[in-house]
């Protein structure tokens, strides 16, 4: 059982969690929109750089949770402040802290009103997101998990598009309703495991029937967050109405929390139930891949297109996870990271187009490539990445997922193929329309190509797309032993012996 080294006091993880909160408190006292933007940019960049320290301190070969921190929080309830990371959470933390400064840059001009409140919400979000990936105490995890709701809903509801209030409320109600039963499951687990500590609950020493109940409660919550079909309906609404930074955070980080939940909780804590439900969930994942692909194909709104493509991509992630194979889970983790990079980039590009056109209609953007060649170049690479073209980041992940899936069920994977084709089709359609499509559009007069700031925003993502596409080995190495550890806990032989 991975328990990690007992640590104490404040460490790097706590710094990463609370630095954004401190930055938010400072931001609340600052005046002047430009000052606030710069402050948010500087603080998020500094946190992003500090998070690179994780790579130094984290030992990829080690098993269990590292950089552990542990102290009592509420003694009478047995709640601890307990942190720790494994390979998968390190990657997701880096993704979060890396996207944060890009979100600030992407909102530089987009957000013109209430800049202070916006930046405070963004920074508070970062605290909660990093906290979710570090928490090793279930109550701590739940607090961070739910603490995201308020700032995220405000981001959508205050700075969003025309139907923002509807989208914000839908997001809130869906997520909150989903996590209600999770709370009950957490309390039930505590009774069995004796504490709220997540590592103590792992290993599957619970009766099969109890595992099914807990798995079901978690499934509802995580399936909504991922989102898995049929719980996806909040996603297009939230994505479309959210401001650019909100969409980037939603797609880049929030959706990963569902799949992270499966990997961190569902598989190790309820292995028996996970094995039992895995075939069904693989079918649901394939349904999501097909549905997301076909729905994206039908969209005329660019943001909606990217939103539905997310449903499909996340289908790959859940497919890989529930294949319960080493390749599949590694692939799923890669898909999670890559989707954050690629979809985040696509949302940024769409946001930049929206700033110029005040429309997200694909037809209005037709032929923009003529006046915006730099934008077209970026969009080209990101679209190729989104369709998992070899040489880009997404290819590696989806290939591993397919390979893992094939070893489980060939029929299933053949069923998923149309989804892959659809992904190529909708991405090429968007790229073709925006870059080359239509005749000279009179609306496009006076539109400027990407500014230096916008190029700086997109460039890091472009580098990551190509680097991870050509050289994925370091990332895979980082998580390999963690994935092996998780799968080791799901193995039937291991779990069944512990059943009382």
């Amino acid at each position: 059982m991975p328990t990690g080294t007992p640590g104490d006091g404040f460490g790097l993880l706590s710094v990463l969690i609370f630095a954004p909160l401190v930055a938010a408190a400072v931001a609340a006292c600052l005046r002047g929109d430009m000052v606030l933007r710069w402050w948010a940019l500087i603080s998020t960049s500094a946190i992003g750089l500090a998070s690179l320290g994780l790579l130094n301190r984290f030992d990829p070969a080690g098993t269990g949770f590292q950089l552990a921190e542990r102290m009592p929080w509420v003694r009478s309830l047995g709640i601890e402040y307990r942190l720790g990371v494994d390979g998968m959470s390190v990657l997701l933390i880096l993704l979060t802290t890396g996207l944060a400064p890009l979100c600030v840059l992407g909102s530089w001009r987009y957000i013109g009103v209430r800049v202070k409140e916006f930046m405070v919400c963004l920074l508070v979000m970062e605290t909660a997101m990093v906290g979710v990936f570090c928490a090793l105490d279930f109550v701590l995890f739940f607090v961070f998990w739910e603490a995201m709701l308020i700032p995220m809903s405000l981001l959508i509801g205050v700075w969003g598009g025309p139907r923002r209030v509807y989208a914000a409320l839908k997001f809130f109600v869906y997520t909150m309703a989903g996590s209600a039963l999770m709370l009950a499951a957490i309390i039930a687990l505590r009774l069995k495991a004796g504490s709220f500590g997540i590592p103590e609950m792992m290993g599957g020493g619970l009766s099969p029937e109890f595992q099914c109940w807990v798995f079901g409660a978690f499934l509802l919550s995580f399936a909504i967050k991922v989102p898995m079909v049929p719980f996806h309906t909040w996603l297009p609404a939230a994505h479309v109405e959210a401001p650019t930074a909100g969409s980037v955070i939603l797609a880049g980080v929030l959706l990963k929390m569902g799949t992270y939940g499966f990997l961190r909780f569902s598989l190790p804590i309820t292995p028996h139930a996970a094995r039992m439900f895995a075939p069904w969930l693989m079918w649901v994942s394939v349904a999501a891949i097909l549905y997301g692909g076909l729905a994206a194909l039908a969209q005329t709104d660019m943001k909606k297109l990217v939103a539905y493509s997310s449903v499909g991509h996340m289908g790959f992630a859940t497919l890989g996870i529930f294949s319960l194979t080493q390749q599949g889970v590694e692939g799923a983790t890669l898909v999670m990271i890559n989707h954050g990079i690629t979809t985040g980039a696509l949302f940024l590009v769409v946001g930049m187009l929206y700033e110029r056109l005040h429309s997200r209609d694909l037809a209005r953007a037709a032929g923009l490539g003529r006046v915006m060649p730099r934008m077209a170049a970026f969009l080209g690479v990101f679209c190729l990445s989104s369709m998992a073209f070899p040489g880009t980041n997404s290819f590696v992940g989806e290939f591993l997922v397919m390979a893992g899936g094939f070893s489980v069920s060939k029929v299933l994977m053949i069923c998923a193929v149309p989804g892959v084709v659809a992904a190529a089709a909708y991405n090429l359609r968007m790229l073709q329309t925006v870059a080359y499509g239509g005749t000279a559009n009179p609306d496009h007069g006076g539109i400027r190509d990407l500014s230096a700031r916008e190029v700086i925003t997109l460039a890091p993502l472009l580098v990551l797309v190509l680097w991870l596409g050509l050289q994925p080995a370091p990332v895979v190495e980082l998580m390999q032993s963690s994935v092996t550890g998780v799968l080791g806990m799901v193995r039937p032989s291991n779990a069944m012996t512990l059943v009382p």
Partner: protein
Amino acid sequence: MTTSLIPAFLPELVLCAGALGLFVLCLGMGRVRAGAWVLLATGLLGVVAGGLTWGGEAMLFDGAYRVDGFSQSLKLILCLVLVALVLVSGELRDVREDIRGEYWFLLAASALGFVLVVSCMDILALVVSLELGSFPLYLAVATRRERAGQRSQMESAIKYVMFGVAANAIMLFGLGYLYGLTGTTSLPVMAARLRPLAETPLALAGIGLALAGLFYKLAVLPFQFWTPDVYEGASHETAGVIASLPKLGAVAVMVRWMSLAAPEGRTLPLLLGVLAAGSMFYGNLIALVQRDFKRLLGFSGIAHAGYALLGFVALDQAGAAAAVFYMTSYALMVLACFTVISRVSEDGRNVGIESLAGLHRRSPLLAATLLVGAFGLAGVPPFAGFMGKLALFTAAFDRGHGWLVVVAVINAAIAIYYYLGVVRAAFFGDPGDQPSIRLTPSTKVVCGGLIVGIVLLGVMPGRVLDGLTAVMSTTGMPAVAARGAGS
């Protein structure tokens, strides 16, 4: 008996002096401000007195009155709530002008009653103190200013009195049974003599009926009918008092009375569990369709009383501590909402959800207070309501009431919707041409204080919750059962 120079009942003396001072003061006219200052000073001195007598233990009046960790904690909480209430009430704009001075006296007398009740170990003293706390509030409901188209305060006051008196009669009837069974009015003696009889129908009927009076104050099904009407009919200030002080007092008395029940009995937990589930569903489902903010809080109050009962279903110290913690946080959160109501309504009229529209532009601080209060009530982390619910659910689950916890989380999910409706109006609504709201310094203080309190109780509940759990050992509640020792 403590040998120190400070009498163990110093908080009571302070409040008593304050109440008498206010009585003298309100013989003259137009002394609203002076009254507010006196009561504020009384509350603050009460807090100090509570702190000074902290940790002391004493038996007074032949064992009828007991000062212990539990009672002093509750007194401290009650005095803090009193201070907040005085600040929230402010100028008493919605109370009839000629009796505003008297209003402060009523509030002081009521607070004194509830401060007394937490120490009572004799059922006669307990009933008398409980009535001392309740009667001023019956009057306070009727003090709302009359204006064209609004005379519901009299109806509300009559309802409040009638229901209250009926519930008290049932409570006295139940206490009569208990006295008949044991031949004593002293709670500890009664608990000891009742122990072998605890599962007999007569004892259960006695305890169940005796709880009626407390259910009425907490607004638990089936004694909840007065709640929405009284909230709606009473002035905002009075409704705030009714939502906080009596509920805290009732929870405290319930802790004392639950020591009468058999720790391993099944009947009483079943009764409480059914009532809790009923209250939660009743309150939350009806609150979904409310348009008036105060009525909404009334119905949600019924649901919250249901949550608090979960702690008593557990019948152990952890559960009782969780219930007291929850009611304390509830008092803070509901006061945050009433602060907003009383500041948004300029002339004391009731506030519909839609009139909160765009509050964040009219007054960011009030909107933030509302956000924290409403999400706290909804049980969203990191606010106090979440930790309270977690403590209650854990306590109930540990004693094998998993079904009740599932019912409660479903209810928490239902409740999100209407709290969200309130926040939605305040943050996403359009204020139209309504002017911005100017806040007095005292309002700012109370808003800031409530926000800090709600967040602190949510983020760092450790000291308070651990402290309450520790003092529960003095109440005669059964100790924590073997909890979660792996299965």
